[in-house]
């Protein structure tokens, strides 16, 4: 009904803000302080036509995604191990507190000294994502219904079956929630690290150069590229994670109705 009355509500809102943006840039009348959306689009198209545009995107996308995926896997394993062997949790606890409290900029400088700029976004992405996934994994495992664990004990279910049928359904909503936050954070911190470290052919190098040449249009264009890449990666990753949910295809087919007989 709502869609019938306002079929173009969302595009209308976007158009409204684009017009506000354009009006503001025209009022400011200074391309260094504020460029308009049309100039950003033009800068983006110009950048897309350059030979190293896709190479740059591939470089940063690969590095940040690698950092995220490594942290995602390591966080699940470390969280699982901490639940299974509390001593591991105790050992990791100060490390996690340290990683969470140290500013990302400090890690960037340290990583630059220790490992150079080439794998900077991998390391920073990993450090930002790892504690989030670790904490969510522990919370997910601890949320497993104790009644079901007792049932598994009585029926002597194997560890593999317990993981598949009991822990996995409890864990996935926590991992999905943690991943939503971690994905955005990994992109923001990964690009920030690249801006500081300026590795060659990285996305982070572009805003750095835009700053030097006072090219606000290029800065906005690359920001748009980063947002789109982050959204793309988030969509693909959460879709894949959703596939691991039990009965996902069945749920889609059946809907959420409850049998009342």
């Amino acid at each position, binding site marked *: 009904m709502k869609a019938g009355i306002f079929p173009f509500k969302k595009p209308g809102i976007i158009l409204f803000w684009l017009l506000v943006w354009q009006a503001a840039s025209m009022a400011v009348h200074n391309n260094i302080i504020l460029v308009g959306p049309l100039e950003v689009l033009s800068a983006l198209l110009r950048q897309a036509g350059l030979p190293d545009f896709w190479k740059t995107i591939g470089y940063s996308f690969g590095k940040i995604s690698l950092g995220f995926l490594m942290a995602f896997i390591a966080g699940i394993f470390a969280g699982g191990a901490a639940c299974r062997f509390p001593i591991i949790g105790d050992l990791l606890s100060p490390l996690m507190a340290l990683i969470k409290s140290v500013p990302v900029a400090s890690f960037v400088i340290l990583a630059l000294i220790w490992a150079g700029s080439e794998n900077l976004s991998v390391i920073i992405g990993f450090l930002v994502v790892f504690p989030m996934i670790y904490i969510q994994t522990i919370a997910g495992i601890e949320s497993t219904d104790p*009644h*079901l664990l*007792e*049932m*598994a*004990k*009585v*029926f002597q*279910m194997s560890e593999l*079956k317990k993981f598949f*049928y*009991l822990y996995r*359904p409890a864990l996935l909503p926590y991992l999905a929630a943690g991943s939503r936050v971690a994905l955005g954070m990994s992109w923001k911190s990964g690009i920030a690290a690249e801006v500081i470290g300026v590795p060659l052919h990285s996305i982070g190098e572009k805003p750095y150069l835009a700053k030097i040449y006072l090219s606000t249009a290029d800065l906005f264009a690359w920001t748009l590229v980063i947002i789109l890449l982050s959204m793309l990666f988030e969509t693909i990753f959460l879709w894949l994670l959703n596939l691991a*949910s*039990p*009965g996902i295809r*069945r*749920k889609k087919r*059946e809907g*959420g*109705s*409850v*049998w*009342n*007989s």
Partner: protein
Amino acid sequence: MELLIRQLSKSFDGQTVLNHVNLHLVSGNIYCLMGPSGSGKTTLFHILLGLLKADSGKIEGLRKSKISAVFQEHRLCEAFTPIENVTMVMPHSSGNHKKAKNALVRLLPAACLDRPVSALSGGMKRRVAIIRALLVPFDILIMDEPFTGLDEDTKQEVISYIKEQCEGKLVLISTHQEEDVELLNGIKIHL
């Protein structure tokens, strides 16, 4: 086989729930545990299932036995189908799916077998829990108020299925209904 329970006691926060309980149970019989709520039926079952430790007393004949159970709550994995809930506890075998399906269609409409358990009614979930307990190999079967949420006709069907599957086994059922004892041809035990 025999199950010998001697002087079994259990307290919670100073409140005695089981006080020197003595029972001699023999396979081939269905024992119906009766008693008001709070009389210790579930506590006794949890001790037999190894989920609680008794404060004192002995249980003989339990160690070598395979044990199965229907809990007071359904304790099913809600995101999975009835077939998956049954097969997940069965020892690995290629015929599990067919075996579970054949058993389930006896007590449940076939159309609900592909739905997640969360979409089933309380009575249907109860039947899934009962079939799950009956399809694993067992010497002793413990059923804590298994007929809760079942209408009379369904209860009759379930009871005849239990009697069929439990021949020669030791069955312990807790119930509040005197008529259940008759329907099960059970031996009444007051706690």
